[in-house]
């Protein structure tokens, strides 16, 4: 990794317990007073805001390092405690140390032979299960030793020690004070510490009892100056001042020879404050509060949870050079572009280094200044000083600029930016686009990249980031650009595909438009930005298929399936559609191999521009010929209506028959099912069958000639036949958790039905279509299932979110090493070849290699 060449690398981080000596050594101040500021508002020497501990006020300088605010990292202070207190975070460890060691000689309460065994055991369990295995072995030891009566080394009697939560240790009913505890812990020898999994170099047990209190730097607990000029202190500062105050009183009382009870009380109070300083949510302890009653946020609260330091500040960082606004579709821009509003382009900048070759070019930007587009907002000198470009400074900066400077110029067309929509569930949620500066206030994207982002335009907002170094820009371009992300690593097919209008438009074009005037065809192609129309046959009228064929390269051969019943096959030969239509099965995301094959044969860049043209062509068709839905789309003729009614009647009668049979005990139960379950299943089957029957009737009888609703469903652009059936025939059975509706009132779902009514009506069968309108109870049932599915979504999101977090946390360091093996960062081999054959899904075709077509290709070549 080259760390050996550079000094500014963090190579290791070690974790240790601070010793009193170290606390004192590392500190710059001895804190002696709880006061913060003097009358002038200047920090008091030896106070909690002592200037030697760092500065948070602008204008002041740190008296230790001379740094200003943001330069000075802060320095610790120290405070000797009048009496030692226990460190609350180590209570369990202190407990196990006390329980398992002799109070007289400090040795572990096991015999020599046991010792040997244990050491071996410890080593073994560490090898097996790492540090935690070791801790487990230690816990086991502590358990064994618990019942030892006498020290096997010096023969001293061992009393039982118990822990009274939160931090009182009782020995034979008498409370051990921290001084005694510390004395005992001191006796434990370095060699014996191995038994407890402690490293004597980094954690002597007596250090777990605090005698010296480390006062964190001011920079850790900055005070905030309110608008009124009043200063508001950080929670930690409040807590430390409590500790200092009590500590002082304890000192005074001890020196004055106060009675033991008073000293003990103060000591306890000191223990409480020192404890809550670290952890303000210890069980059985009252929470330390502000005067307002709000609990103090102390150390642990700062680190823990999603809002804590680790997950909020260390793993997630705020960024500059980003923008967020609503997205809207624009089919006329390319799929790998993003439309950026002028206002945004004026604010976001991309740094460009001045060389002798681009000096004049960049000077032009500088000349235009920050208000005129495209201009520049900042000029950075080689020493890192940043100068804001304004109309006033412009002239001076133009004089000054020379190679080596950096101009932060406005975003211009073709800049690489990273575009993102939350939730960022997969890597295609963050892709690089090329900027296209446009009027308007929204980000514009081509609708065919909606899929990977899972975006729609009902108010979705997206984020845009401008990379600020050459490396970042390059990496974004070669690894994150849309064209590199087209094939999903999840299933090896194109994740970018036509949606909605683009599908229905091309479907209409290739299916219905048999004769288009040549001039009209040319219009269509021009609308789609296709200017090379040599492929369009020189006829007076051309077919839709011929128009679409213009987009396909001449040497492209393909055969695949379509969704269409009449033309179930799609055959393309020499770049011409011989048979078949364009629908979701070919143009859609993740479906069919057409897009994948084009990508493979002509490269991602071509595939992407092909996608863009397809979208534009589809929309051009709809624009030219019009496309709209009518209520009459869902009309069925009278005789079909009669048939649907009959289907309904039959289904209902069948249900009643089943119920009758059940009541007469004539029904035979399915194996492993009760009679009731059997009945329910049979009824469900009958009623669901009714709907599929109705679907057939509707499909047969609906006005088929260019019925837009039908076109939508059949092309796969949106909706399905079922939606149409629910409008024109009937809605059908409402299922709640896979059953008919049965919950509600006592033995009936709604009060408008009799008890134990098992009929279709009472159990959520909706016999009306949406066009006819629902009866009140039917409406209610529909609402029930609707609510259930809302709940399902609401409950599922956090569950799957947590699953994702766990999966990504545990699998993130697994990668393919240069020898082809899959390893974790620790070096352990997980697989010898990725997926057992080393194939990358994103490079494969649907996860495999298309052996068939390779064989055919070689065979057809001839000798």
């Amino acid at each position: 990794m080259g760390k050996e060449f550079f000094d500014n690398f963090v190579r290791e981080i070690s974790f240790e317990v601070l010793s009193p000596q170290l606390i004192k050594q590392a500190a710059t101040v001895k804190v002696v007073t709880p006061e913060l500021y003097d009358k002038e508002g200047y920090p008091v020497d030896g106070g909690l805001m002592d200037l030697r501990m760092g500065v948070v006020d602008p204008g002041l300088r740190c008296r230790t390092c001379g740094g200003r605010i943001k330069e000075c990292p802060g320095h610790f202070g120290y405070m000797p405690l009048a009496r030692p207190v226990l460190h609350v975070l180590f209570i369990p460890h202190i407990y196990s140390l006390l329980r398992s060691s002799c109070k007289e000689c400090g040795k572990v309460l096991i015999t020599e032979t046991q010792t040997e065994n244990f050491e071996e055991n410890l080593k073994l369990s560490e090898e097996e299960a790492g540090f935690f295995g070791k801790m487990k072995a230690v816990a086991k030891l502590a358990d064994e030793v618990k019942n030892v009566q006498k020290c096997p080394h010096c023969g001293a009697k061992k009393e039982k020690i118990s822990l009274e939560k939160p931090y009182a240790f009782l020995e034979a009913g008498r409370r051990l004070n921290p001084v005694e505890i510390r004395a005992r812990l001191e006796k434990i020898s370095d060699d014996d510490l191995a038994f407890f999994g402690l490293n004597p170099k980094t954690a002597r047990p007596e250090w777990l009892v605090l005698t010296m209190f480390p006062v964190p730097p001011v920079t850790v607990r900055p005070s905030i100056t309110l608008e009124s000029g009043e200063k508001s202190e950080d929670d930690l500062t409040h807590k430390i001042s409590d500790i200092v105050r009590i500590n002082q009183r304890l000192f005074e009382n001890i020196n004055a020879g106060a009675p033991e009870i008073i000293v003990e009380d103060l000591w306890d109070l000191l223990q409480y404050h020192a404890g809550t300083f670290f952890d303000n949510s210890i069980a059985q302890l009252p929470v330390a509060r502000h005067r307002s009653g709000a609990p103090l946020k102390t150390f642990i609260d700062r680190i823990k949870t999603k809002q804590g330091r680790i997950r909020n500040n260390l793993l997630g960082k705020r960024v500059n050079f980003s923008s967020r606004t609503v997205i809207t579709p624009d089919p006329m821009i390319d799929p790998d572009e993003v439309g950026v509003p002028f206002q945004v382009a004026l604010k976001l900048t991309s740094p460009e280094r001045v060389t002798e070759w681009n000096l004049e070019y960049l000077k032009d930007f500088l000349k235009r200044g920050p208000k005129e587009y495209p201009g520049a907002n900042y000029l950075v000198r080689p020493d890192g000083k940043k100068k804001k470009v304004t109309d006033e400074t412009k002239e001076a900066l133009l004089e000054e600029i020379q190679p080596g400077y950096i101009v932060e110029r406005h975003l211009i067309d073709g800049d690489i930016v990273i575009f993102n929509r939350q939730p960022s569930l997969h890597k295609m949620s963050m892709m690089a686009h090329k900027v296209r500066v446009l009027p308007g206030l929204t980000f514009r994207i081509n609708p065919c990249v909606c899929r990977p982002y899972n975006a729609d335009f009902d108010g979705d907002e997206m984020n845009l980031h401008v990379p600020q170094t050459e490396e970042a820009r390059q990496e974004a371009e070669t690894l994150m650009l849309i064209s590199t992300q087209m094939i999903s690593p999840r299933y090896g097919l194109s994740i970018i595909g036509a949606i909605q209008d683009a599908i229905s438009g091309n479907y209409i074009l290739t299916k219905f438009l048999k004769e288009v005037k040549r001039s009209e065809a040319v219009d269509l192609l021009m609308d789609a930005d296709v200017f090379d129309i040599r492929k369009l046959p020189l006829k007076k009228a051309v077919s839709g298929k011929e128009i679409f064929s213009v987009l396909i390269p001449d040497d492209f051969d393909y055969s695949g399936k379509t969704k269409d019943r009449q033309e179930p096959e799609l055959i393309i030969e020499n770049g011409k559609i011989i048979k078949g239509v364009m629908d979701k099965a070919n143009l859609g995301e993740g479906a069919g191999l057409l897009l994948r094959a084009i990508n493979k044969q002509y490269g991602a860049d071509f595939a992407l521009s092909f996608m863009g043209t397809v979208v534009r062509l589809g929309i051009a068709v709809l624009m030219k010929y019009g496309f709209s839905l009518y209520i009459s789309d869902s009309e069925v003729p009278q005789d079909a209506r009669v048939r649907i009614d009959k289907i309904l009647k039959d289904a209902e009668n069948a249900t009643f028959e089943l119920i009758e049979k059940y009541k007469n005990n004539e029904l035979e139960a399915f194996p492993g099912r009760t009679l009731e379950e059997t009945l329910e299943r049979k009824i469900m089957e009958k009623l669901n069958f009714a709907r599929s029957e109705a679907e057939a009737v509707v499909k047969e009888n609906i006005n088929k000639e260019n019925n837009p609703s039908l076109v939508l469903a059949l092309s796969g652009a949106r909706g399905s036949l079922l939606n149409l059936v629910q409008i024109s025939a009937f809605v059908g059975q409402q299922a709640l958790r896979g059953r008919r509706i049965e919950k509600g009132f006592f033995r009936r779902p709604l009060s408008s039905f009799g008890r134990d009514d098992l009929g279709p009506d009472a159990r959520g069968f909706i016999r009306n279509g949406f066009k006819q309108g629902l009866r009140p109870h039917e409406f209610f049932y529909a609402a029930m299932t609707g609510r259930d599915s809302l709940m399902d979504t609401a409950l599922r999101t956090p569950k799957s979110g947590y699953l994702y977090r766990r999966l990504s946390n545990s699998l993130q360091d697994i990668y393919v090493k240069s020898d082809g093996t899959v390893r974790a960062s620790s070096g352990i081999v997980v697989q010898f070849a990725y997926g057992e054959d080393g194939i990358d899904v994103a490079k494969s075709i649907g996860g495999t290699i298309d052996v068939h077509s390779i064989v055919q290709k070689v065979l057809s070549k001839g000798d």
Partner: protein
Amino acid sequence: MASDVYSEYETRLPGLLLQRVKEEVPEKTGVRKIRAILDAVCEEYELCKSESGEAVGLIAAQSISEPGTQMTLNTKHFSGVEEMNVTMGLPRIIELVDARKKIKTPSMTIYLASPYNKGKREEVRLLAQMIKETTVEEISEQINVNLADQIVEIILDKERIKDLRLKPASIAKEVKRQISEKNVVSDGSKVIIKVENSSSKSKEVSPIFKLKENLKELVVAGIKGINQVLPIVENGEFVIKTAGSNLKKVLALEFVDKTTTITNDIFEIYAVLGIEAARYSLFEEIFSVIEQQGLNVNPRHLLLVADVMTSYGIIRGITRYGIIKEKSSVLSRASFETPIAHFTKAALAGELDSLSSITENVIVSQVIPIGTGLVDLYMNHKNKKVKDK
């Protein structure tokens, strides 16, 4: 010989791919043609290989979780009358990935050895009944208590015991084994228990009634843990689906096909058949959920998860007690869950974080050692002089 040509390529192509080529190539193809085909496949294979540094772990995690948001929560079997109730959908995936020891709906699919698999429906039904855990209550017509003589009398259902191939004597033996009474005898179709310790002359009657109640629940036949059985026809042969699972006992039965019978309880498979079997069934279980939901996820991703979970020879869940616990980096563990516990323990043990994986390097704002972060480029300053001339 054509087969020799194939064997030449064994080191260059994965076995499965080679097999597919063999199947695709028409029979009477010349050796030269076959070689040309194989070369073409090799070329394609090399192009499709994953690149060094690819973060396949993260891709697997995303490939499972992203469709996970689309999965339904409460799916249990939908169509089809003859199905056992099995947890499906997201809850099942979570259960598998957590490596829970007690799963919600353990279930077995028991394949039968021939000739049983092609037998009559009635026969199979009887076999199924034999597997099912059977209590005394189920095989008895009546349980009588004779207070005066301190006798409990089980009147057996003759038909039922005949079906289950049980004999009154064997039932008596089984009952005797399980309760602490010595006087258990069978008599015709009865089992008679004489309660001996009527030592106390107290008028307490409850012990004998208590015994009666206990008797009802007593398992006297079948396999423990198998609560429900359902014989169904699958691909033209009889298969028994069960609720509840006991792989070890079921595999011991002579009429069971030991090579194909499986359970959905991964830990049971691990215990009976070992870690490799557990690994594969873990993969299959996750895959079946994904498939049942109609989602398209390449099996590689699921395989990787199964491999990671079993790579230490035991089944580790993807939880803070499983895989994440065993990470070497303190910061990495702490950033997942329970940071305080990890920090205190690390301090006591004097742990060293060598910043070898992702999270730690993100924390200290360094390049992560994966993907493009794995490589570095150096310039040799000495060579520069040569060029300057």
